[in-house]
């Protein structure tokens, strides 16, 4: 089953009527089955854009369309079974077990009123295995490390069995092995199950290695949008982050980004 197409037209947003706009009118079209990375410095509007596309925030202007349908008209339940969103830094204040947290992803698929769904089902087990948190099933979410909690949260989103996965910095709390593991998992879901994946990423090399399209966002507007080789080039990155980098690339190779140390810059 191909996920529906996610499109945005003239999307603009500000948090209060008199505060400056976080996003300029912005258009975006996410093809079903694409793996898209969203790049940009802190405060560039990445999280806001993701929340608008996930339907968590409502645009001040413009529309988000999901499969041609205005997202604001789609009922919560149907939306959550089509699109799953992993926000940044979720704090669970009650000591649920990791299994219970992942099982919450099954809420949209609950049987009856959901009063007896226990989380001991096959989907929950598989999602926990896929994200490497099967061993944490009976541990409390309040007692696991930040990286473990992040993977539990991704497992929860997978349990929604949605065709579109939107993630806000999914690798931010993870050490390098789990960063690779999470990106491998997303890539596998993208290739084998045709999931559309949109993730805000800070690590340019991970973005380059895994995504087939990158969107560079600065101060609420799209600076560049295209395949990694077109976006990850030194002048654009200097412009975007104000940092000098070297990019190694060649035909058929994904670009690799190296930071130029401060003392070498004058030379």
């Amino acid at each position, binding site marked *: 089953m191909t996920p529906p197409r996610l499109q945005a037209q003239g999307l603009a947003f500000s948090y209060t009527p008199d505060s400056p706009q976080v996003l300029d009118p912005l258009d975006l079209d996410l093809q079903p089955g694409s793996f898209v990375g969203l790049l940009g410095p802190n405060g560039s509007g990445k999280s806001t854009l993701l929340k608008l596309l996930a*339907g968590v925030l409502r645009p001040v202007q413009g529309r988000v369309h999901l499969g041609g349908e205005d997202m604001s008209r789609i009922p919560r339940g149907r*939306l959550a*079974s089509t699109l799953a969103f992993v926000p940044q830094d*979720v704090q669970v204040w009650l*000591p649920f077990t990791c299994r219970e947290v992942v099982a*919450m992803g099954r809420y949209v698929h609950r049987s009856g009123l959901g009063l*007896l769904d226990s989380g001991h089902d096959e989907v929950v087990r598989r999602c926990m295995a896929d994200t490497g948190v099967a061993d944490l099933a009976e541990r409390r979410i309040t007692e696991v490390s930040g990286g473990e909690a992040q993977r539990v949260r991704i497992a929860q989103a997978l349990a929604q069995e949605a065709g579109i996965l939107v993630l806000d910095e999914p690798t931010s709390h993870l050490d390098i092995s789990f960063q690779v593991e999470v990106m491998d998992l997303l890539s596998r879901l993208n290739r084998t199950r045709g999931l559309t994946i949109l993730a805000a990423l800070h690590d340019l090399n991970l973005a380059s290695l895994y995504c087939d399209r990158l969107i560079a966002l600065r101060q609420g507007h799209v600076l560049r949008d295209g395949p990694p080789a077109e976006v990850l080039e030194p002048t654009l990155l200097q412009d975007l982050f104000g940092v000098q980098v070297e990019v190694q690339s060649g035909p058929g190779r994904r670009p690799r980004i190296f930071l130029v140390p401060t003392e070498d810059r004058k030379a």
Partner: protein
Amino acid sequence: MRRASLAVRLTLACTGGMALLTVAALVGMLVGSVPITPGDLWLAWSDPDRLDPATATILLDLRLPRVLLGILVGASLALAGSGFQGILRNPLADPYIVGTSAGAALGASLAIVLHLPSPLPWLSPVPALAFLGALGAMMAVYRLARIGNTLPVETFLLAGVVVGSFAGAMVSFLMTLAHEDLPRVVFWLMGSLGQADASRVALVAPYLLIGGVALYLLSPALNLASMGDEAAWSLGVDVERLKIRVILAGSLVTAAAVSASGLIGFLGLLVPHLTRMLVGPDHRVLMPASALGGAAFLVLADTVARTVGAPQEIPVGVVTAMVGAPFFFWLLHHRKGLS
């Protein structure tokens, strides 16, 4: 260790809670300034005509309504506390956090000090005005806290404090005018089941039934609300609608409980925490278990309140706080945290 399935945990929690409540109710019927034997209690059940009339009056007219009201009020406060803690994601939330207590206190003080007549024909003036005051305060808090279509948790808590402070000041002002009615106001503020009768039982019962069922049905969504508004929303819960429903259901049961019994403190904060320590955070188990636990706790506290200083009665709110606070502190210290 693999945790037992939800159905097993629910059955265990409810069976345990029912057993505890049964014991509490028996104690509440048998213990008091006039001790009653289990034989008398059995006789009241099987063959009331053979019972000595004085004993029959104590059992059926005095203790039975008190035990029943204690069950209803205790369950109401514990349910509302569980719901408010869950939706506000705040371990300090209690049933009174939405200003219902202060609103009820204002209504009751008005009735007592100004000798106002009852606006509700089926209720006497104090519970009737207390009930209306509680609902009025809840609506004021809701209107103050609402921003557009959302009800931000912080704004809601602040609005509760604002309305609570205002109503509290009005109560203090009325108390300065009260003269000979002052002890009645003070006693009402401390909470008591002493006025228990059929009409008060009938006042609380329907709200507990409706509000309790509503809160139980909302419990799967309440679990998701513990992840925060954004995460719960993206998991498929209409968070804003959930907030309104939980607050409405919780406020209705609290308003009815408070108007029947005055301000019984600490129970609505303590019982949800205690129950969560025993049965875990899943609201689908927590809701029924804390209702049973709150009922048992209040019946036992009321038995203490009317027995230790007999014939003088201690307000039951004093007992719940005096017993509950140190116990809760010990438990927190022992367990090193609310979880």
